[in-house]
């Protein structure tokens, strides 16, 4: 189709309104994304300037790098420990909060309070809770006869400690999203199920869970992406250690780019991160969303 003068004029008006946002996106999102790909193909100096063409060298290094492979494992474990438990816990609490009671909003605000808490604040508080000498966590465990681990010192436990902190940080969001989902379930459906003799656990698995599945699925994707991007709690709790046990992809990018000044290599890691998030988003839009129950 040909562009008429009117088409061009109306596009011009539209672009005037879009220009400010578009400018920011072009300068701080689209061009940087292109530059990340570009940098990943070059050797770089400590200043970040490109020195010589590297081709796919950085990607080959990534594939053969023990550190990067353990970084993928750390990221995977982090997601597996954090996302399902966070969502299940959020659902249980949301069901508890989904009652018509006087002053229920007080409880809702308290339980959702972590939406306002920054990762830095959360990490500093949990650092105290995990403390081997002063921490309350191991003291409480000792009361029930469990000898608490050295949370931030044992490699297999440190990633769990980071995950616990992250579960707490995302709990507020999970609760609010699931509560909204629960409130969207029509009362008649419960009535009908009750008449059919459904009770308690059966009602929960047969009615509640399928009916909130869009929210559950939304959180599955959003929380996983959040874990992939998590930086602050790792920086403040473990700094990627001990022995790289919590060096996730993002933390690897930080260390390689801003501590070791290997900007080209770190850019290749960034491309991997971008790809993972992209795949997750596409899965959300294309594949699983169709299988989830919608009203």
């Amino acid at each position: 189709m040909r562009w008429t003068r009117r088409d061009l004029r109306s596009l011009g008006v539209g672009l005037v309104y879009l220009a400010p946002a578009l400018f920011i996106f072009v300068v701080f999102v689209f061009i940087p994304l292109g530059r990340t790909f570009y940098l990943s193909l070059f050797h770089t100096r400590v200043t970040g300037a490109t020195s010589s063409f590297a081709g796919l060298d950085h990607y080959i290094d990534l594939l053969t790098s023990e550190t990067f492979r353990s970084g993928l494992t750390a990221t995977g474990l982090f997601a597996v420990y954090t996302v399902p438990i966070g969502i299940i816990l959020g659902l249980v609490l949301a069901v508890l909060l989904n009652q018509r009671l006087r002053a229920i909003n007080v409880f809702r605000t308290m339980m959702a309070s972590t939406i306002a808490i920054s990762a830095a604040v959360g990490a500093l508080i949990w650092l105290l809770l995990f403390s081997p000498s002063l921490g309350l966590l191991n003291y409480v465990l000792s009361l029930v006869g469990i000898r608490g681990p050295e949370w931030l010192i044992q490699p297999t436990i440190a990633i769990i400690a980071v995950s616990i902190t992250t579960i707490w940080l995302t709990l507020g969001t999970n609760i609010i999203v699931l509560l909204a989902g629960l409130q969207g379930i029509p009362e008649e459906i419960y009535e009908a199920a009750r008449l059919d003799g459904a009770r308690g656990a059966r009602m929960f698995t047969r009615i509640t869970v399928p009916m909130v599945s869009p929210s559950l699925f939304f959180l599955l994707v959003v929380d996983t992406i959040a874990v992939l991007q998590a930086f602050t709690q790792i920086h403040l709790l473990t700094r990627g250690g001990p022995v790289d046990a919590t060096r996730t992809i993002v933390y690897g990018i930080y260390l390689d780019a801003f501590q070791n000044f290997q900007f080209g290599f770190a850019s290749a890691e960034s491309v991997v991160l971008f790809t993972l998030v992209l795949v997750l988003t596409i899965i959300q839009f294309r594949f699983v969303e169709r299988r989830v129950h919608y009203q």
Partner: protein
Amino acid sequence: MSTVAMQQRTQRLPYRKAGTYLTLALVSVLVAFPLLLALSYSFMSESEIATFPPPVLPARPTFDNYGRVLATIPIGRYLLNSFVVSSVVVIGQLVTASLAAYAFSFLVFRGRQLLFFLFLSTLMIPWEATIIPNYMTIRSLGWLDTYQGLAVPFLATAFGTFLLRQAFLQIPRELWDAARIDGATTFRFLRDVVIPLSRPALGTVAIYGFLSTYNQYFWPLLVTNQTLMRTTQVGIAQLRFEETLRWGLVMAGVIMVAAPTLALLVLGQRQLIRGLTAGAVKG
């Protein structure tokens, strides 16, 4: 079940109701426990914190830690920095997102779909994946340790644009037609009709933008080096890397930094909830 029948049922079960409240109270305290503990520790002396078993409530509450935070780090300056940057981002996002959302809802032009998709595609690009070139951009502009370096990259928001577009689409088309007949310009209709009618959605975008900027850590950590340009989050985190960890001090700092966001949570809860659920619930 009718309301009357429901009331009768609950009246018959006073114990059950008390049990529900007790459960809710216990679970709420448990969820908020880390935060409550931080508050409690902020009033304890270092010697009390060091006792065993770990105390939960201060025996002799003291404000000393707060005074010591003020003496140890320029927390007032950190708060000022964070407020300046977050406010600039909020205002910028409101302006850029309103203009863009207006184009995506009221203006008709070829290529609109494509441009809208371009906006939404920024949601799929994690900020951390572009952080290296962005750092280089800010450095080459000479914007390290400046407010503009902290704020400018975040002056546009795809999520906010999307949210505002949804709100703008609720405005009856008849208003637009009437305004055109009255001879109102395109911009005047946005300023005099669309913006005043969309206050709740603008509130959501503002609160969301403020919280996410105020709570940032990675970006301010990279682009600030001078103590006086640090934001709250990076500033209090410095206490963790001091030679001796003084927990009362750290917790007092934590409370001072978290207080504005908690106040915002209480005041703007409805707006926040609307923002968080916009993407999740179809309707």
